[in-house]
């Protein structure tokens, strides 16, 4: 089919890169934003602009909060689809398990619980007979944040980068997985295509044609980011592998898995099933103190990262307390497990096995919940470098073909270019419209979360329509003015977001940087302004190029340019 190995790799690189590059842009851009998801949350929720909090007392503060927590209506709806017969009144379902998870960057606390359901499940392989409830609380007071206090960073941008926020049948996860696999393929085929990879890495000729310089930048970003991009693509896949992509232990190997669960419960002393005998709960605060004492004794003092109570109110109930991973790559670790009724230590986790350590290291390095601000910023740069690599790939694709497409009246490069505008400036505009709408809509607006999403998708759709309407020049081998115009929209929105933040909260940059320093908000504002400055520079550069093209008239259609275009890339 392909005359040679290199031809096959070039074909793969071009077509898989092009078709899934649009998804990869989303993954890399929103992945880069996710590095600061909690900080974006603070920007979007002014009520939560306070310092990160330690784990609160369970006995005095969390216990009554959990007592009021009910199954979430969304989850009740999803659970109803999985069970036979109608579910009882959600408010009457007993809480079987509860948890909280926190990191060193969280002022607010995310809590959740599992509720037992009496119904039989439709599918025999579905053993998760629980409904779920969750909430975000202020750990200083126990006050529950309302649902419309939507966390744009951790509840929208973050899931965007691995699920496209398209939950139906988990289809977003599958598309992202295909894109991640294509990223791996593109990296390998990209290396194969460019035999002189080392020399090309040091080649950048911005003064040459857009085609040449976009290829130089594509190669530079691709090679410089190669280990980073390979790592993130593959660990991103590994994180969801056992649950979604290759769920061997819940399907084919379920018998072996269940057999192991029973053996493990016997080995660890942590009961797999409830006893069915009610029992009271001892002081959880005392257990936390004991866990902290044991961590300090092992020369690794720390706070609680993850606390989990299973078989709540049952004699077999236990409390698992894991240390927050501020100073280690693994998200949490050094678990200590207590009998819930007595507070007796059942077990202290031994150091993880070699396999688990590798797994925790790789996935932990992707999720980055530990404390390392320099590395955090390098992640952002790496993610944006990925965007540069993909976007220059689009531009190169268009630049290489547009002269020829103009000659044969093909619309191919015009369509690719309009989609590229949508995936580059359009995507940033979508994110910015969401931030602007967040500051414009009143805080107590009903369905504020829903309308912010509408604005996001609507903004993105408009960016596409604009890019398509303005794309005619590409069919004549010229630049789509939408690139430049959307840069200016981006500037306006970024500046508007910063100004609106000042007007609606009083948190201007002089205050958040100097007088009353609060880096989460200052960082978002400064990043918005930096984006605006960059977009101004790009818009002016594009304007110069468009003017030059106009002066050159029909040069782009002359054979000389075409010959360069074809010689440019094997």
């Amino acid at each position, binding site marked *: *089919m*392909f*005359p040679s*190995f290199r031809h*096959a790799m070039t*074909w*793969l690189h071009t077509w898989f890169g092009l078709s899934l590059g649009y998804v990869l842009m989303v993954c890399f851009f929103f992945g880069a934003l996710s590095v600061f998801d909690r900080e974006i949350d603070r920007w979007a929720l002014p009520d939560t602009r306070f310092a990160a909090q330690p784990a609160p007392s369970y006995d005095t503060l969390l216990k009554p909060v959990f007592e009021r927590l009910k199954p979430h209506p969304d989850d009740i709806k999803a659970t109803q689809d999985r069970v036979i017969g109608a579910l009882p009144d959600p408010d009457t379902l007993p809480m079987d398990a509860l948890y909280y998870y926190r990191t060193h960057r969280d002022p607010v606390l995310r809590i959740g619980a599992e509720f037992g359901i009496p119904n039989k499940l439709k599918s025999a392989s579905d053993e998760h007979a629980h409904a779920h409830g969750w909430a975000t609380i202020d750990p200083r007071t126990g006050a529950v944040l309302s649902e419309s206090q939507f966390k744009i960073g951790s509840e929208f941008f973050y899931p965007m980068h691995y699920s496209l926020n398209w939950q139906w049948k988990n289809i977003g996860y599958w598309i992202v997985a*295909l894109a991640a*696999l294509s990223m*791996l*393929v593109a990296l*390998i*085929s990209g290396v194969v295509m460019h035999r002189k990879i080392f020399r090309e890495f040091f080649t950048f000729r911005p003064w040459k044609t857009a085609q040449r310089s976009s290829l130089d930048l594509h190669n530079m970003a691709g090679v410089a980011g190669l280990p980073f991009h390979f790592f993130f693509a*593959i660990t991103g*896949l*590994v994180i969801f*592998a*056992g649950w979604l992509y*290759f769920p*061997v*232990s819940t399907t*084919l*190997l379920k*018998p*072996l*898995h269940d*057999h*192991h669960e029973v053996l*493990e419960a016997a080995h660890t002393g942590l009961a797999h099933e409830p006893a069915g005998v009610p029992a009271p709960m001892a002081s959880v605060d005392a257990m936390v103190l004991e866990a902290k004492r044991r961590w300090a004794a092992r020369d690794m003092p720390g706070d609680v990262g993850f606390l989990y109570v299973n078989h709540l109110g049952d004699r077999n109930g236990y409390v698992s307390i894991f240390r927050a991973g501020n100073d280690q790559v693994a998200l949490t670790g050094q678990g200590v497990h207590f009998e819930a009724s007595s507070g007796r230590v059942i077990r202290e986790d031994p150091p993880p*096995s070699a*396999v*688990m350590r*590798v*797994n925790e290291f*790789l996935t932990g390095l992707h999720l980055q919940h530990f404390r390392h601000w320099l590395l955090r910023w390098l992640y952002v740069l790496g993610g944006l470098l990925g965007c540069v690599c993909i976007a220059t790939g689009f531009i190169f694709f268009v630049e290489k073909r547009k002269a020829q497409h103009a000659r044969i009246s093909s619309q191919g490069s015009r369509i690719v270019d309009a989609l590229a505008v949508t995936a580059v400036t359009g995507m940033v505009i979508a994110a910015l419209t969401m931030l602007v709408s967040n500051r414009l809509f009143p805080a107590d607006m009903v369905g504020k979360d829903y309308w912010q999403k509408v604005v996001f998708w609507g903004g993105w759709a408009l960016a596409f329509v604009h890019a398509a309407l303005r794309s005619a020049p590409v069919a004549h081998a010229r630049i789509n003015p939408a690139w430049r115009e959307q840069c200016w929209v981006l500037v306006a929105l970024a500046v508007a977001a910063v100004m609106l933040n000042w007007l609606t909260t009083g948190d201007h940059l002089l205050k958040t940087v100097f007088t009353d320093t609060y880096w989460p908000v200052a960082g978002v504002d400064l990043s918005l302004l930096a984006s605006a400055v960059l977009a101004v520079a790009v818009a002016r550069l594009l304007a110069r190029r468009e003017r030059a093209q106009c002066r050159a008239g029909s040069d782009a259609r002359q054979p000389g340019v075409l010959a360069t275009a074809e010689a440019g890339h094997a």
Partner: protein
Amino acid sequence: MTPSQHMRTGAHTRLSIILRIAAALLGGYVFSWGFAALGVVVLSFAGMDFHDAEHAVMLLVFIVFLLAFLWAFIGRSLLRVWAVLAGGGAGMVAAAWVLQRSLLG
């Protein structure tokens, strides 16, 4: 390849490309599934903890998928590509099932 040859082989090439893509994605997925299932059972059989086995395999499975995917495009014979990926994957799933029964039995 001259333009006239290209015209004649166009339809044939398109079909063969579609079959290659299908082999890479579907065949590669089935093969990786087989690898994951058989890998977990074999490692459990060899005495490794179940979750360790599962995680070890999940760390490797996408490398396997990636290699299978690439091979689907460069393997000389399309028939052999399909036979190895789909057939091999199904074979490994069956082997995993049999081995699991003997482990639990």
